[in-house]
């Protein structure tokens, strides 16, 4: 349940953003190569995606995510601003307005309307990679929560200080973790950092606490640290990372 004042703030902000979106599209219609206009449209869609996702208006969040994919193609010049694109974006804006009205009045817009609009836009996004992998599902998103066999892990990783001398880079281990799932958060532990005068530039002092969302088995996470094996692989690995199964987001 969203508090009334927050819902009102959302509707106000969304209304401003949709005005920006529409004005930007109309600017693009006049000057199809205007980077400024395209940025304005993109930022409006992006901000609306963030705010709607935060409040659990998942239909708006998903549709703006889709629009972002299309707009990114325009940005990368994989797609040109045609009459068809402008017309589509204006129709999309009308739909967003209905969705925001729906959010204000607490009634849903038929899911088919959103699905149809997405289907109509897919001609412009075909072959595009989405702007990012879907982020953490908000708590109030039952569809995703139910479907997700994803588990959240906290991986605490404090590399031995001679890691660099062994030709390894702690940041590469983070990259390896990223290949297993989605790193929701990485926190750097600087508590072992010595005074500057005592610091050896060839040693590592940082530790990392990572929050990882993945559907892969624990062994896949552990495998990321196998690379650090060395003389006493098993002991080292245990020393390197501590794995904690985190609570889910539900």
């Amino acid at each position, binding site marked *: 349940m969203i508090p009334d004042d927050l819902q009102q*703030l959302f509707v106000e*902000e969304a209304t401003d953003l949709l005005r920006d979106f529409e004005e930007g599209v109309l600017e693009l219609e006049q000057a199809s190569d205007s980077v400024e206009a395209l940025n304005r449209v993109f930022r409006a869609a992006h901000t609306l995606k*963030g705010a709607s996702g*935060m409040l659990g208006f998942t239909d708006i969040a998903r549709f703006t995510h889709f629009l972002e994919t299309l707009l990114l193609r325009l940005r990368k010049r994989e797609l040109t601003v045609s009459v068809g694109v402008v017309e589509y974006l204006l129709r999309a804006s009308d739909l967003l307005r209905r969705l925001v009205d729906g959010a204000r009045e607490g009634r849903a817009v038929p899911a088919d309307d959103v699905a149809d609009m997405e289907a109509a836009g897919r001609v412009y996004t075909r072959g595009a990679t989405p702007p*990012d992998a879907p*982020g*953490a599902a908000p708590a109030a998103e039952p569809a995703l929560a139910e479907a997700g066999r994803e588990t959240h892990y906290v991986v605490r990783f404090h590399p031995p200080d001679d890691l660099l001398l062994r030709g390894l880079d702690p940041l590469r281990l983070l990259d390896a973790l990223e290949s297993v799932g989605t790193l929701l958060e990485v926190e750097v*532990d600087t508590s072992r950092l010595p005074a500057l005068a005592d610091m050896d530039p060839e040693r590592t002092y940082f530790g990392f606490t990572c929050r990882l969302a993945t559907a892969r088995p624990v062994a896949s996470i552990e495998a990321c640290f196998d690379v650090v094996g060395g003389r006493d692989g098993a002991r080292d690995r245990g020393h390197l990372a501590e794995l904690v199964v985190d609570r889910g987001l539900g």
Partner: protein
Amino acid sequence: MSARILVVEDSRVMRQMVRTALEPDGYDLHEREDGRQALDAIPSVAPALVITDVNMPEMDGLSLVRAIRTLAPFRFVPVLVLTTESGDDMKRAGRAAGATGWIVKPFDPNQLREVVARVLRARAARR
């Protein structure tokens, strides 16, 4: 004295969500709407932590992180990046810019509280 946190977000909804999550923990929250405003405010606000959005008008979040890292008295201030983009490119870019960590939107308010507390604790421990 409660830790001062500078929140940089162009979305009023998002600023309010951050405020709602962190205010009960007694932080002294300051808000700015884009990177340029934040950079101007940093010397007077002197935050213990900066939480910034990425995609903003005027100056984006990553440019802000880079700029903070060149400000002699504030270059070691932790900066958490609040982003809807969870892709590898984004993380690499954040890391390269000097961000302390990132939080993916939509965020779980408790998760944000924990991360903020941990980052501030780590900072206190270093001093």
